[in-house]
C-alpha cells in the first residue's frame, strides 16, 4: 500500500512537526496548529484530501523525528530538518525540497559588546542536542581555534530559558529559530543575532526513501506554492484565475485549466487551486507566519524568488 493510498484511506495526513517553535509550528490555546511548517502540511493535505484541516500533527523531538518517519509513524516530516548528505543517503530518507533556506547563527546580548562570533572565545553556548547545529558548532570553534562550553538543552523552550537567565552567553540554532525565539522576548532589542552564518541549513520536508510517488506529491506541492508566488497567483485571485484558462500557459497548467498534470500524480486536476485557496502561495504563507510584520519578523533574504535575487526556483510545471 503506497503512502498516498494510506493517507487517502485514513482520511488524514500524519505530519511530523516541531513540538513548539513560534512561527513555524505551535499549537494555540485551542490546540490548533499554526505556523510556516504547518502551512506546508496543510497544503499537502489539501492537495491529497482537499481539506486543510485533515492533518494530524505528530510532535516529534529532534531525537525521535527520523525514526518516527522511517517507522511510518508519520507520512511526511516537516520539522525544520536540515538536508544533509548523510541524512539523505545513510538514514534512508528523501529530502524532497527546501521550504526554508537557513543557516546556523548566534544570538547574544547586545550589552556583551560582541560583534563577531570569532570573539566568542570561552563563551558558554546553549545548544539543542541531536541536531546538526551541534556538529557545526564543534567544527566552527575548532576551526577558529577558540574554546567554548556547550550547555546542551533538549528543547527550544529550555534553551531560551537558559539563555535568558544568563546560564549561557550565546544561543545558537538556525537563524530562523533564533529570530523566532527572539521575537518572544520581553526586550527583543537587547539581543543581537551575530552576522556569521556558520552553516548552510536548507530546511525541507522529508519523506521515506523509496516512497517516490509520495515524494513527488510533497515536492510538487511545495513547488506549486513557490510557482504560484512567481506567477502572482494568490489565495485571493486563484479561484478567479482557475475559472477559465488565462493567457499564461504556466498558470493554466498549474491550476489545471490546461493539461492533465494532476492525474499524473493521482490527484484531482485542480489540486493546486485548492492548495493555494486554502493556504495561499509561498509568499503569503511566509508573510503570515514569519514575515516582517509578524513577531518573528524574518526578512525574505535567501528565501526570495530567484527573480528577486533569492534562491526560490520552482522547476516548470509541464
Amino acid at each position, binding site marked *: 500500500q503506497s503512502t498516498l493510498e494510506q493517507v487517502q484511506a485514513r482520511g488524514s495526513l500524519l505530519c511530523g512537526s516541531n513540538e513548539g517553535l513560534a512561527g513555524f509550528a505551535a499549537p494555540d490555546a485551542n490546540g490548533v496548529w499554526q505556523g510556516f511548517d504547518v502551512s506546508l502540511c496543510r497544503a499537502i493535505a489539501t492537495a491529497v484530501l482537499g481539506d486543510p484541516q485533515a492533518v494530524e500533527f505528530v510532535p516529534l523531538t*529532534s*531525537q525521535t523525528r*527520523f*525514526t518516527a518517519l*522511517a517507522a511510518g509513524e508519520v507520512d511526511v516530516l516537516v520539522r525544520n530538518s536540515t538536508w544533509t548528505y548523510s541524512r539523505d543517503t*545513510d*538514514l*534512508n530518507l528523501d529530502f524532497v525540497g527546501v521550504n526554508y533556506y537557513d543557516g546556523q547563527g548566534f544570538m547574544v546580548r547586545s550589552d*556583551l559588546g560582541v560583534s563577531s562570533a570569532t570573539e*566568542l*572565545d*570561552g*563563551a*558558554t553556548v546553549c545548544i539543542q*542536542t*541531536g541536531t546538526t547545529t*551541534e*556538529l557545526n*558548532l*564543534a*567544527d566552527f*570553534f*575548532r576551526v577558529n581555534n577558540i574554546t*567554548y*562550553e*556547550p*550547555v*546542551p*538543552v*533538549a528543547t527550544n523552550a*529550555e534553551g531560551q*530559558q*537558559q539563555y535568558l*537567565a*544568563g*546560564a*549561557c*552567553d550565546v544561543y545558537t540554532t538556525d537563524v530562523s529559530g533564533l529570530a523566532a525565539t527572539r521575537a518572544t522576548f520581553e526586550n527583543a532589542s537587547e539581543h543581537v543575532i551575530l552576522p556569521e552564518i556558520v552553516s548552510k541549513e536548507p530546511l525541507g520536508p522529508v519523506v521515506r*526513501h523509496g516512497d517516490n510517488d509520495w515524494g513527488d506529491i510533497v515536492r510538487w506541492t511545495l513547488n506549486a506554492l513557490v510557482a504560484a508566488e512567481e506567477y502572482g497567483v494568490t489565495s485571493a485571485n486563484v479561484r478567479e484565475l482557475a475559472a477559465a484558462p488565462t493567457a499564461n500557459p504556466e498558470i493554466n497548467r498549474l491550476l489545471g485549466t490546461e493539461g492533465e498534470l494532476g492525474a499524473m500524480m493521482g490527484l484531482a486536476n485542480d489540486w493546486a487551486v485548492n492548495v493555494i485557496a486554502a493556504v495561499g502561495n509561498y509568499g503569503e504563507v511566509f508573510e503570515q507566519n514569519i514575515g516582517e510584520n509578524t513577531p518573528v519578523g524574518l526578512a525574505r533574504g535567501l528565501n526570495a524568488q530567484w527573480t528577486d535575487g533569492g534562491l526560490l526556483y520552482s522547476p516548470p510545471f509541464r
Partner: protein
Amino acid sequence: MADVTEPPRESFRLSQLLYDSRYRSLTIQVVAAMLIMALLVELVDNTVTNLAALGKDIGFGFLWTTAGYDINQQLIPFSSQDTHARAAVVGILNTLLVAFLGCILATVIGVLAGVLRLSKNWLIARIMTVYVEAMRNTPLLIWILIVFAVMTEATPQPREFREGGSASMILWDSVAISNRGVYIPRPVWAEGSGLVVAVFLLSIVGIFALRWYARRRQEATGQQLPVLWISLGLFFVPALLAYFVMGRPVSLEYPELGGFNFTGGVQIRNSFIALWLALSLYTSAFIAEIVRAGILAVSKGQTEASFALGLQPNRTMQLIILPQALRVIIPPLISQYLNLTKNSSLAIAVGYMDVRSTLGGITINQTGRELEGMLLLGIFYLITSLIISALMNLYNSSVKLKER
C-alpha cells in the same frame, strides 16, 4: 488385591506426556521453550526484515567513528574529534559520578531526616514528615526541573559578579555561586607538595592505627580514649604543620571572572548540581522512611535492656540500636541506590551529559544506530544493576541473624 511389590512395567504411552507427573513438567518446559524460541525467532526475523527494508544493517563500527560533538563535563579528556566509543565512556563516567555522589548525599540527608522524624521534638518531626511526603509523592522529574529552575533563576549570572554587579563571591572570594554552576578553587601542586600530601595520607593511616590501638587498649585495660577528638586533631594538625614547614607549597587557584565566564578554579556545572541535588533529595525521602522503619523495627525492649544495664543513650544507639537497625535498613537502602542510579538517566531533563545523553542520545541521533545504541545502553544499566544487587545479596547473607 494381589500383592503388588513392583509397579507393573508399563510401556510408554503418549498420554503420559500430559498425565504423568514425571513427564508433564518436561512437556510444559519443552512447549514453553519452543514458544519462547518461536517468539525470539519471530522478533529477530522481523527486525532483520524491517532493517533490510530500511536498508540498514546491524554493526557496531559506528563506535569507532568520529563523534563530532563536544561534551562539557569530561572526567577523561574528550574532544569532538574523539570516537563515539570514547564519548560513551565519558557518559558512563558521568553517570557513575552523579550516581555515586547522589547515593552519598541521599544517604546523609535520608538518615538525618529519618532520625529527625523520630525526634521527640514535635515540630521537627512534623517538618520532616512534610518533607518526606512532599518528596515521595511528586514525580522526580518535577523536582529535577524545579531544582534546575532554582539554580538558573535564583542564582546570579556570572556578569553580576563584575564591578558594580549585585553578586559577590563567598568564603573570602574563593567560591562563586552562579547560575552556570559553582566555581571553587583548584589546588595547585607546587614542589614539596608531595610531602604534604604524604603527611596527610600518613595521618589518615595514623587515625586508623589509633582506632585499632584504642580498641586494643580498651580490651586490655578497659580505658577508653577520646578517639574522635584525637582523630580530628590527627586529621588536620600534621598536614597543616607540614604545609607551613614546607613553605606553603600547595596554593589555590581561585576562580576569577574573565571574558564571558569565570576562569580558573573548578566549575561544578549547574546541570550536575541540579541533577545531583534533586536525585539526592528525592531518594533521601525514601531512605528516611527506610531508616525510620529500621529503627522502629528494633523493639523498645532492646533500649530498655540496654538502659537497665546502665549504658548511656548514645552508647545504646551505637552498640545496640544501630547494629540491629542496619540489618533491616541496608537491603532496601541498596535497592534505593539502584533506583537512584537508574533515575540518573533523567539527566536528559537538565542537559547533563550522562551515558543516556551521549551514547543513547546524540550518538544514536547522529549515526542513526538506534538499535545498537539502545542495546549497549541497556546492557550498561543492566550490568550496573546486577553488580549492585549482587553486592546486596552478599551483604544480606553475611548479616543474617542466626536463628535456631
